[in-house]
């Protein structure tokens, strides 16, 4: 559905995007991830036809953008970062204007506004709206013509937690029938919404794989939190350090009277059974054992720090 092939973009002499390659299939929800200045927004601006690449090809649904920009743009709904909209218009007029430009029935305005939760602010000036409502108007702007592809640049930035979960739910709902690309800083968002992650750093793709696979591949190191009774903390950690697969063992905050430690696991194997037998064999009582996989955040940090390539 979206094919980006050897795309490079210069701003003057600055190479914002450097030989970028990826393709996105119909129906995928893809997260574009990267630190500030990695080229996410530039990439989105090229995919939506706002900027022309300095070199390389971008095809949407098989059509090169520069060959037929208008019909390509009709297939895409785009919400730019910080939702720049005409502040001097009221919401209803703005959406009617978008409907006219997109050449869709103005009757769709009311329905889209309801889906995006805008019914109460239809007659307010866009400049008077709160950040959350502006973002929703931007979302309505992107959804009005029922596009096959939805491209959202940081759709949840600046929203409060309730609004964030509403917008996420909306994106997930939309993602059932459409191809969605979102860019974000918030990694938990990607883990929650996206099927696939493309991590860019310094204008290049450093990782591109299904979300679960990425976590499995890079996030194998886990942490195990443990609370036990009937022993001292020192006694417990000494015994645990001797176990194969335990890389480190640190004291942790715990309930009074219990020995609490956090283990760093240095292997892919599950060490919980051996930990359990150890505690049982010593006649101690296990109060708590919780395994925590490293989050995508750690993967992200290790991949983008210093522009390392995976």
């Amino acid at each position, binding site marked *: 559905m979206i094919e980006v092939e050897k795309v490079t973009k210069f701003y003057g002499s600055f190479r914002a995007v450097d030989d970028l390659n990826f393709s996105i299939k119909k129906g995928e929800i893809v997260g574009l991830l990267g630190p500030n200045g990695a080229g996410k927004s530039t990439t989105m601006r090229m995919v939506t036809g706002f900027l022309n690449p300095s070199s390389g090809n971008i095809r949407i649904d098989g059509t090169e953008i520069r060959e037929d920009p208008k019909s390509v743009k009709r297939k*895409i709904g785009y919400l730019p970062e910080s939702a*720049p909209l005409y502040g*001097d*218009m009221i919401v209803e*007029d703005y959406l009617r*204007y978008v409907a006219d430009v*997109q050449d869709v029935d103005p009757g769709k305005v009311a329905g889209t506004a309801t889906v995006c939760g805008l019914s109460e602010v239809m007659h307010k000036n866009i400049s008077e709206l709160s950040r959350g409502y502006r973002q929703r108007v931007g979302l309505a*702007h992107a959804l009005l013509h029922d596009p096959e592809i939805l491209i959202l640049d940081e759709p949840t930035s600046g929203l409060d937690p309730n609004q964030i979960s509403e917008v996420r739910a909306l994106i997930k709902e939309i993602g059932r029938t459409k191809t969605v690309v979102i860019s974000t800083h918030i990694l938990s968002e990607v883990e929650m919404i996206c099927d696939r992650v493309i991590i860019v750093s310094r204008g290049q793709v450093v990782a591109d794989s299904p979300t679960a696979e990425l976590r499995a591949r890079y996030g194998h190191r886990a942490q195990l939190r443990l609370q036990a009774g009937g022993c001292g903390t020192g006694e417990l950690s000494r015994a645990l350090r001797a176990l194969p697969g335990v890389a480190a063992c640190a004291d942790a905050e715990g309930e009074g009277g219990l020995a609490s430690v956090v283990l760093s696991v240095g292997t892919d194997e599950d060490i919980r059974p051996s930990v359990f037998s150890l505690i049982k064999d010593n006649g101690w009582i296990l109060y708590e054992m919780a395994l925590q996989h490293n989050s995508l955040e750690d993967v992200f940090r290790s991949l983008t720090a210093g522009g390392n390539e995976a």
Partner: protein
Amino acid sequence: MKSRKSAALVIHSRELAAYFSSPVAYIVMGLFLVFSGILFFSTFFLINRAELRGFFALLPILFAFFVPALTMRLFAEEKRSGTIETLFTLPVSGYDAAMGKFLAALSFTAIMLVPTLAYVLTAATLGELDPGPVVGGYAGALLLAAGYSAVGVYASAITKNQIVAFFVAFAVCILLSLGDKFLVLLPGPVVGILEFFSAGYHFDSISRGIVDSRDIVYFASLTALFLWMAVDVADNREAA
């Protein structure tokens, strides 16, 4: 199947509505009427002839100031606020945007001219008014407004600073308006060539009531040239 509405026309109506919701446009319109009124009435009773020559003679200079004040916002404001990104990711080409904005500026200038018909009525009630120069004058005014609006749209497209857009357009328009007034010291053949490039010269010729195809060609070319350059800038946009 309903007919497809042209994107340029949709943008034209949005921009025209935007003029009427902004105080700047009312200020520009008010000032234009004050200035043109002073210029008309201050000479009208002195010369004591039923004609609008005094008004039309100064129109190129008035337009050189007031048209850029109307056009400076068109692209520059969108670039500054970032709305240019939402505009050009809709199915809108550089031509649609430049043409729509140009037509909006031209329409607003035409609306701004409507109250000046009061001068025509004043002159007509007080004496025998020759309709030729009046019709020619208004036709010329529209051609002039078209040329200057195109200049203004181009100037607005090359910067995100409205003040810069205003001064670039003002400089070009005032040169076009007054170019033929500075030629007395030059030899004859050069004057002929430079006169041809002067909007003031062609406007004077039309506002005498003589419709010459060369004047119409001149204004059409001026408008087309600057619109084409504006379209080119709009289509080859760099980061907002």
